[in-house]
Structure formats: C-alpha cells, structure tokens
C-alpha cells in the first residue's frame, strides 16, 4: 500500500513539471524552427504553410515541401544581420569583462568582511536585483543624458566645459549591462571566495610571496568556478538583451535582441524573426551547455 502510493507520488512529482516544461518550453522551440522555414504571407497567422489538420496527410506532405532555408540565406546575405550578431557578441563580451572587473573586488571585499556583516552585505547586493530591471535601466537615462546629473556634476567640478555625450552611444549600453548584471557576477564569485581557505594565502606570505603574486597564483585560480559561472550568467542573457540597447543605446548601437524585436513588432515578419531567434540560439548553445556543466559541478560539490 505504502509502496504503491509512494510510486504514484513520485511519478506525479516528476511528470507534472516535466510535462509543463515540454509543452511550454521545448515544443515552442520546434515551432520557432518550423516557422523559420516558412514564407511571409499577408494573412493571419502571417506565414505559409500552416499545417492545417483539415487537409490530412497529403496536405501535410505538400506543406512540408513548401518549407525552405530561404530566410537563413537572406539573413546571411544581409550585412545588417551579420553585423548585428557580431556586435552583440562583442558588446556582451566586453561588458562581461567589465562586470568581472567591477564585481571581483566587491565579492572579495564581501568574502573577507567579518562574518557577522556578511549576511547584511549579501542582502545589499541582492536587494537591487529585486527592484525592477526596467526601472534601474530607466534611472540611468536621467544620469547620462547631456543635461543630466553626471554632466552637471562634472561641470560643477570644472572637469569639463562641453557636456559629454554618453546616452545613445555604446558606452551607455556597457554601463547599463555592467550595472544591471552586477549581482549575477558578484553572487557566484562571493560563493567561491567565501569557501576559500585563506590560510593558503598566509602560508604563501610566510614563504615570501608578495600579496599580488599570491592573489594571481592562489586566490584567482581557486575562484575560477565562480568566475566561469558569473561570466556565463552575464554573457548569455546580455547577447540577446533588448531593454538596455533600446533605452540607452542609440540608433547606431546594433544588437540582435533589438533587431529581432523590430523585425517582429515593426516589420511583422514572423518567419525572419524566427530565423533570427534560431541562429541566436545556435550561437548560445555552447555557452549554455558550459553554464549547465558549471551548475552541475557546484551541485556535486554541495553534496
């Protein structure tokens, strides 16, 4: 009795979330792929073929024949898309390195803080993450625009006599990404740095190793799992970012998330935006798998 109930319980606990993710996460990707092979049409939905059930098997085969890789050829033929992919990867890569540079000292400072203060510091890092992403990006508009607070402050200090143009440039996008994704970098770094055995550093010091060398030879290599996890958590979503380049970047800032959005909402070209999404996904598969591996490894360590 007990065992039978246990089996039912177990099966239910597995099946319900499994089925949900299959239907609402995996199946949609196949639909995206299928539509990326379709043609644009003036209809609703705006693509052909649609694989209607009413035409039966022969209709299905016929529709299958209408699929083509035309959209992909079109994407690779147009330098706009190729450049958008390249510049997204570039912007995301540079921002990831900048986030690491800003986040590492913070995580290190937290890990070396007295243990009583650490929960408070952790909370202070997490708190902005709970406040709206959109609002935090929006707040930067008021700071970065030509008559904004940053320029006023620099005028006041007498550092500049011409306002700096930052808003609507790629620099603003870098600032936006570093700012918004900082907690994603700091948290995994803190997790590895906090667990580290600092008597190793003391031993190195006793043996005559200067602090900076000790950092590069001991602390940094030991924190690599956190570095990898943090970089993945920043890089992957940053490549497809839409809100930051749209609000802070100018018309010349090219990012693929924004291109996909425009293709979908302005041009209403569903097949081409699906093809854009498929290639973006292919581009991200390697880093996503790396991230999942890193995640699995920390899980093993947790046991």
């Amino acid at each position, binding site marked *: 009795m007990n065992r039978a*109930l246990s089996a039912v319980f177990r099966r239910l606990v597995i099946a319900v979330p499994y089925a949900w993710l299959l239907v609402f996460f995996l199946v949609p990707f196949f639909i995206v792929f299928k539509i990326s092979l379709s043609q644009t049409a003036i209809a609703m939905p705006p693509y052909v073929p649609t694989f209607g059930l009413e035409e039966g098997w022969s209709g299905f085969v016929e529709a299958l024949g209408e699929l083509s890789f035309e959209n992909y050829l079109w994407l690779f033929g147009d330098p706009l898309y190729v450049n958008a992919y390249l510049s997204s990867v570039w912007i995301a890569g540079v921002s990831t390195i900048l986030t690491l540079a800003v986040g590492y000292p913070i995580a290190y400072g937290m890990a070396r803080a007295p243990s009583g203060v650490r929960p408070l510091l952790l909370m202070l890092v997490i708190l902005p993450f709970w406040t709206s992403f959109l609002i935090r990006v929006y707040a930067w508009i008021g700071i970065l625009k030509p008559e904004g607070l940053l320029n006023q402050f620099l005028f006041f200090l007498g550092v500049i006599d011409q306002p700096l143009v930052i808003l609507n440039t790629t620099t603003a996008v870098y600032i936006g990404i570093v700012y918004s994704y900082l907690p994603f970098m700091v948290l995994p770094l803190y997790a590895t740095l906090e667990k580290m055995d600092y008597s190793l550093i003391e031993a190195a010091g006793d043996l005559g190793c200067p602090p900076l060398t000790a950092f590069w030879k001991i602390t940094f290599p030991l924190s690599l799992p956190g570095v990898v996890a943090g970089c993945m958590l920043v890089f992957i979503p940053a490549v497809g970012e839409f809100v930051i380049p749209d609000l802070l970047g100018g018309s010349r800032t090219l990012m693929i998330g924004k291109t996909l959005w425009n293709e979908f909402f302005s041009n209403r070209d569903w097949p081409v935006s699906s093809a854009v999404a498929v290639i973006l996904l292919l581009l991200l598969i390697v880093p996503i798998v790396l991230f999942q591996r890193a995640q699995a490894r920390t*899980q093993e360590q947790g046991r």
Partner: protein
Amino acid sequence: MAGTWGRLNIAALVLGFAFLYLPIVLLVIYSFNESRLVTVWAGFSTKWYAALFSNRGLMDAAWVTARVAFLSATVATVLGTMAAVTLTRYARFRGRVLFSGMVFAPLVMPEVITGLSLLLLFVAINFDRGFATVTIAHITFSMCFVAVVVQSRLISFDEALEEAALDLGATPVGAFFQVTLPVILPAVVSGWMLAFTLSLDDLVIASFTSGPGATTLPMKIYSQVRLGVTPEINAACTLLIGVVTVGVIAASLVTKTREVQRRRDEQLAERG
C-alpha cells in the same frame, strides 16, 4: 599588511554599493521634485503621486500586473518545488538529462527568444492572447528560478529525517508535508517572492505574449518612457521600489527568526 588589504576591501565595497544604489536613490529623490524636468530641483512636492493615482491607464495596468504576478508566482512555486524534489531525489528516470536541461536553460535564455517561441506556440494552437497567456509564460520561466532556490535548500536537507518518518508509518505524502516542507519552507517562500518580482518586472516576454486588455505595468512604463520622461513614472517606480524593499526585508526577518528558532530547537534536542 592586513591593514592595507582591509582598507582596500572597504573601499571596494563602498564604491560598489554606491554604484549599485546611487541611480535608485536619485530616482526616488526626483520623484518628489516640483519641476517637470528631471534634472532641475524646484522644491519638494508630492504632486506626481497624486497624478499617478488619478491615471486610470497606469492603475489598470498595475492591477493586471499584480494579479498576473500573484497567480503565476503561486503556480510556479508549486511546479518549481516539484522540479526541485525531482532533481535532488530521483537520480534515475528516463529523460533526466533533458529535464535538468529544461530547468536550467530558461535561467539564461534571452527573453526575446522565450517570448517569441511562446507567442508562436499560442498562435499555432489558436489560443487567444491575454491575461491567461501572460500568466502561463510567467509561470514557465519563473518556475525554473524557484526550482534552483528550493534545490539549494533540499541538497543540505538530511534525508534521514524523512526516512525516519516513513519508518514510523507516515505516508510519503504525509512525510513530505509534515517533515520536509516545514524545513525547506524559507526557501519555498523566497522562491515565491522571486517569482513574484520576476513577474512584476518582466517587459519583454509580456509584450510578446499579452493581448488586448492585458497591458502590464512594465509595458505601460516602457511605452511612456519611450515618449519621454514623465515624473509620474518616477513616482510609480518609487512606489514599486518601496513595496519590494519592505517585502524583502520583512521576509528576510521572518526567515532569520525561523532559522534562529530552528537552531535553538536543534541544540535543545541534542542536549535533551
């Protein structure tokens, strides 16, 4: 030597937190500005809050957002907790690799892809877009965040406790609800809160999956921001920040008291 490092650490923390909080603080300050211009301070005023509350469009959107967030967070917490149990307890079943992949992938998936793919699903099955589709979309991505949060707590949970309950005649369901759930409850609660704020916050996925009559607050804020900065939005943002801050602090205090209580109980049990 230790002194220099200490000072450097404090400097890093002060600068880091200044960078994290300054934009938010400035936004809050300027929501009380008399002037329409965000960059000119013209005296203290709460008029933008009054304007906000008489703005029907914003208020309707806030109500839609609150309902979507509450419903999706609740369902996502149930599904995410189940997924966490599956990942930590059931080491072997067919398709486990696929399952763990599907749980972790949405955490990093660019929102434009998730949004577009869900929209195309709803169109393919002829499902009318609106309140229901936004809620389903939010459940899908936030259940994965809940799963990760709950899983981290379950990993450190001593399974012997549950086994003992089973040996004493509890049903598996009973053992879960009476032994496991109370222990992992803080993680389940913070998972719910995370799902709730993720839903409150989401612009991109909601824009793809919502239909007429289901405009969420971020969608409304976004369209107004694109038209130009209005101080009403500053007021709305300040209120949202306030609500979330109070909620997070309250929740962490609750978790902390529970944790302290639990430790005290454990110590007593060990001594007894």
